[in-house]
Every structure is written in structure tokens, then in C-alpha cells.
């Protein structure tokens, strides 16, 4: 059952897609240099920055996992949003790390890291950033497709195409990816910024409209009583929730602080800003959006719980609820909003991980400087290859547990070490390459080990006992300790090794 009307809602979605694609393709003529392609010539101002940052960090996957958090944990599930908003406000206000980073004129974080730790550390940092980032992004397409298939209400799972049975989910994933990849490959960051702006407006109007509808027709009292009945005090306070507690809160604080400092798609907005003050303003003024980012879909998730009760797959609860709750006409806007959210996220993510591959992983192997034309061509090929990887990884990887935890763990692979490296390179002259390698090793090894334990039948129970929060905290703590200890162990110039 769904309220989706192919004629009316389908036309709204079609019109949105047409305008976005046209705008994305139009600005490709301004791309003449690699800098234009990767950081939009560093000409981005505050309001475009706010729109782009907000649109990038809110995709269908975000909406799905934050709604799932609301469904599973009540209001306590919105804790990461508060942690992220506070981190962004503090970092934006003080300029902690982001000011020296933007002032240095680099394109990526590893480029700054090289200045203190050398080219090998830059290369290793690039590898963990891409590894963590792509593993993280690998599930975006599947979840986006899952949302669309559910909300549109496709009853059959596959259709016949030239004699082959093609799944609707897979077809949705492919169509989404091809659309996004086309304008990202041609226009780079410029297309991303322009489409991000349009997507921010469409996405926000849709999110606000659906939230008002939920608050009016489901009602605040029902939302609160549902949380009370299902989770008691823990539904309002993460510290007393039996599945969350202080390890969850501490992990969220560490994870979100590190993400605001070093998540390449977030920091790319600071690096594309016209100066460091503009970058700081973008952070300060966007910070509260991150509360909305968790709380608004969280309320949709709670409303799904209030309306549907307990369902087998918590991830599907919110789209199943919206499919029959949102009326015809508004349904088109809602789907256009979600498509907008997803396209802006996918395009930005493909571009920024591509920029690290080009700049930091391939960079050291370039014996002579490439022409701007060749540089842009290589960047376009990298973005296309990332798209192909995402398609196959999304189809292959079976997601277990809740999505936010998976994203937190895979993100930690690089967030833990790169945040330590960035802070050290900005504020600790004594930090050196031994410390950097130690930090990268521990930060990557602990989450990867946890994922392997979780996927291996013999150690699955052990992974469950440890839990994702303790392993996440361990990654941050050991990464920082490794930087400190190994930096002190490395002999100084003039000392006997």
C-alpha cells in the first residue's frame, strides 16, 4: 500500500530531476583547472557553503539511520546530532585546526599532514581516508534504493529486461548512481555546489512539510507516550537506556568531534571557502542543522513506531509508515526531497574521496606535473571508478546491526588517526612520523578487527560482548596514545638510534 501517484508525484520528481541535471551540467563550462574541479576555485561564500554542507551531510541513508535510531531508541537516538552540533559550534567559533588548515591552502588534509610527517605518512593517511570513506559510503546506494522501493510501494521485487530478471532495488541504485555520476564527472565541485544548493532547498521544504504533518496528525502526545511505553526513561536519556549508556555517549562525542575536524566531505567546505573566516562562519551557522538532522527523521521513526508498532526490519519502518501517511502531491515533494538529499551526498562523497586518491595516493607517483587538462581527465576517471565500486559493494555487502553503528565503525578507521594527526600537526611540534604511523595503525586495526570478528561465525558472540562502542572508544584512545608514545620513542637528530 502506498499513496504514491505515478502521474502527479512522478511528475514532481521528474521535474526536480530535470532541473537539477540541467543546472549541474550547465556549470561544467567554468571548469578549466584541477582547483576548479576539486575546490570550485576556492570562491565559495557563506550561504552557498551552508547549503552545500547541510545538503552533503544529509542523504537518504542519513534519514534512514536517524529514523531507525528514533524507532529503536526514542529521543535518545538523537544524541549524536547534539554531539555533532556542539563540536561544530566549538570548532567553528574557535577555528581549532580548521583555521590553520584553510590558511595553509591545501586541497586535502594529508597534504597538510605531509608538512610535519613527510610524504610516506601523507600517502598512508590518504589510503586510510579512502578505505574508511569508501567502506562507509558503500552502503549508501542500497539503503537509498531500499527507501525508494518501499515508499513507491513496488510489490514485485524484479522485472524482465531483455530476457534478464532485474531487481527493482538494483535498478533504482543504478539509475541513482548514473544520474549523480554524470554531472559530478563533468562539473566536479562546481556542479556539486550548484546542485547542492537546489537540493538543500527542495530537501528542506520536503523535510519541514512532512515533519509538520507528523506533528499535527500523529501528535506530540502520542509520540511522547510511545517513547515512554516502549523505552521508559531510557527513551529520553541515553545514559539510562539499557542498549546505550555512557560508552555510547562517549563514543558519539569522540566520533563526532573527529568527524567535524577531519571528515573529508565536511572539511571540503572549509577548504573550498574563500578564506578561513568564511569557513568558520559556515561551521558556526550550520552547527544547529546537525540537531535537526537527527531529531527530525528521529521523530518520523518514533511516529512509525506509534503507528505500526514493532516490525521485523527497523530500517524499513519509517519508509513503510511514510508510504501510507504522506498524501498524494506531498508524496512527490517528499520523494524529490529524499532524492535531493541522496544526490547531493553521493556526488560530494564521490568527488571528495576522488580528490584524496588523486592528490595524496597518486600524487607521490607523479614524476612530473600533469597538465590541467590531464589532471581533470584523471579526476573524472577516478570519480567514475568510485561509482562502479559503490554499485558492486552496495550489492554485495550484507548489512548487519544498525546502520549508524556500521557507519561509525567504518568512519573510525580513519577519523581516529587523522584527527590525532591533524591536531598534532597544527599544535604539537614534537609529533613525528613514528607517532603518525603508530596512530594510523591502531586506529585502523581496532575497527577492522571488530568488523572481522563480527562477520566470522566463530567470533560473532565475542564481538557482541565487546560491542561497537568500546571498540570505537579504544580506537580513539589507542590512536592518541600511539602518537604520543611513538613520537617520544623516535630518536631526535644527533641522538644515537
Amino acid at each position, binding site marked *: 500500500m502506498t499513496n504514491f501517484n505515478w502521474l502527479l508525484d512522478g511528475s514532481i520528481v521528474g521535474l526536480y530531476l530535470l532541473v537539477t541535471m540541467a543546472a549541474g551540467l550547465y*556549470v561544467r563550462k*567554468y571548469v*578549466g583547472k584541477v582547483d*576548479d574541479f576539486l575546490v*570550485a*576555485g576556492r*570562491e*565559495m*561564500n*557563506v*550561504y*552557498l*557553503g*551552508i*547549503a552545500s554542507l547541510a545538503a552533503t551531510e544529509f542523504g537518504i541513508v542519513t534519514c534512514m539511520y536517524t529514523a531507525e535510531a528514533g524507532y529503536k531508541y526514542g*529521543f535518545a537516538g538523537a544524541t549524536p546530532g547534539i554531539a555533532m552540533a556542539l563540536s561544530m559550534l566549538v570548532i567553528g567559533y574557535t577555528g581549532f585546526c580548521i583555521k590553520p588548515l584553510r590558511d595553509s591552502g591545501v586541497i586535502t588534509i594529508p597534504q597538510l599532514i605531509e608538512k610535519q610527517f613527510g610524504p610516506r605518512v601523507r600517502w598512508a593517511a590518504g589510503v586510510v581516508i579512502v578505505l574508511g570513506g569508501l567502506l562507509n559510503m558503500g552502503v549508501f546506494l542500497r539503503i537509498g534504493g531500499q527507501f525508494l522501493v518501499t515508499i513507491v510501494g513496488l510489490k514485485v521485487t524484479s522485472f524482465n529486461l531483455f530476457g534478464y530478471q532485474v531487481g527493482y532495488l538494483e535498478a533504482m541504485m543504478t539509475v541513482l548512481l548514473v544520474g549523480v555520476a554524470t554531472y559530478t564527472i563533468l562539473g566536479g565541485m*562546481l556542479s556539486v*555546489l*550548484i546542485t547542492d*544548493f537546489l537540493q*538543500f*532547498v527542495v530537501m*528542506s*521544504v520536503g*523535510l*519541514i512539510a512532512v*515533519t*509538520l504533518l507528523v*506533528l499535527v496528525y500523529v501528535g*506530540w502526545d502520542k509520540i*511522547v507516550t510511545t517513547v515512554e511505553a516502549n523505552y521508559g*526513561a531510557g527513551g*529520553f*536519556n541515553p545514559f539510562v537506556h539499557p542498549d546505550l549508556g555512557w560508552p555510547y555517549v562517549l563514543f558519539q562525542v569522540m566520533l563526532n568531534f573527529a568527524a567535524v575536524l577531519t571528515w573529508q566531505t565536511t572539511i571540503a567546505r572549509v577548504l573550498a571557502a574563500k578564506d578561513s573566516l568564511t569557513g568558520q562562519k559556515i561551521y558556526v*551557522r550550520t552547527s*544547529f*542543522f546537525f*540537531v*535537526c538532522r537527527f*531529531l*527530525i527523521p528521529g*521523530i518520523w521513526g518514533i511516529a512509525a513506531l506509534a503507528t505500526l508498532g514493532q516490525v521485523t526490519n527497523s530500517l524499513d519502518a519509517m519508509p513503510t509508515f511514510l508510504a501510507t501517511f504522506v498524501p498524494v502531491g506531498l508524496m512527490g515533494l517528499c520523494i524529490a526531497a529524499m532524492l535531493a538529499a541522496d544526490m547531493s551526498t553521493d556526488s560530494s562523497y564521490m568527488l571528495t574521496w576522488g580528490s584524496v586518491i588523486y592528490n595524496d595516493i597518486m600524487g607521490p607517483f607523479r614524476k612530473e606535473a600533469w597538465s590541467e587538462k590531464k589532471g581533470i581527465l584523471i579526476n573524472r576517471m577516478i570519480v567514475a571508478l568510485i561509482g562502479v565500486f559503490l554499485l558492486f559493494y552496495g550489492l554485495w555487502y550484507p548489512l548487519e546491526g544498525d546502520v549508524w553503528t556500521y557507519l561509525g565503525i567504518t568512519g573510525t578507521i580513519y577519523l581516529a588517526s587523522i584527527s590525532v594527526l591533524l591536531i598534532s600537526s597544527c599544535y604539537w611540534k614534537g609529533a613525528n612520523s613514528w607517532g603518525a604511523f603508530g596512530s594510523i595503525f591502531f586506529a585502523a586495526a581496532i575497527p577492522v578487527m571488530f568488523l572481522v570478528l563480527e562477520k566470522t561465525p566463530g567470533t560473532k558472540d565475542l564481538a557482541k560482548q565487546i560491542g561497537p562502542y568500546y571498540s570505537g572508544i579504544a580506537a580513539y584512545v589507542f590512536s592518541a596514545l600511539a602518537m604520543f608514545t611513538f613520537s617520544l620513542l623516535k630518536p631526535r637528530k644527533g641522538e644515537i638510534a
Partner: protein
Amino acid sequence: MRYIWLILTITAVVWYTFVTAYVAFKGVTDIKEMLKKLGEKD
């Protein structure tokens, strides 16, 4: 605790509505300026 979430929800909806309208208006100027500068560079 429930009142904290009520206040936060109201603030989120009001703030988000205002910021969407404001950014939609001011963002257009930013785009025009950015494209103008990039055009001049070329």
C-alpha cells in the same frame, strides 16, 4: 527530560524553516558572485 525534547523539537522546526528561507534567498547571490569571479578568471 520530555520538555527538553519538546523545546528542542520546536526550536529545530522554527530554526530550520527560517534558515531554509534565508539561505535560499542569499545563496543565489553567492552563486552569481562565484560564477562571475570564475568567469573573469577564465
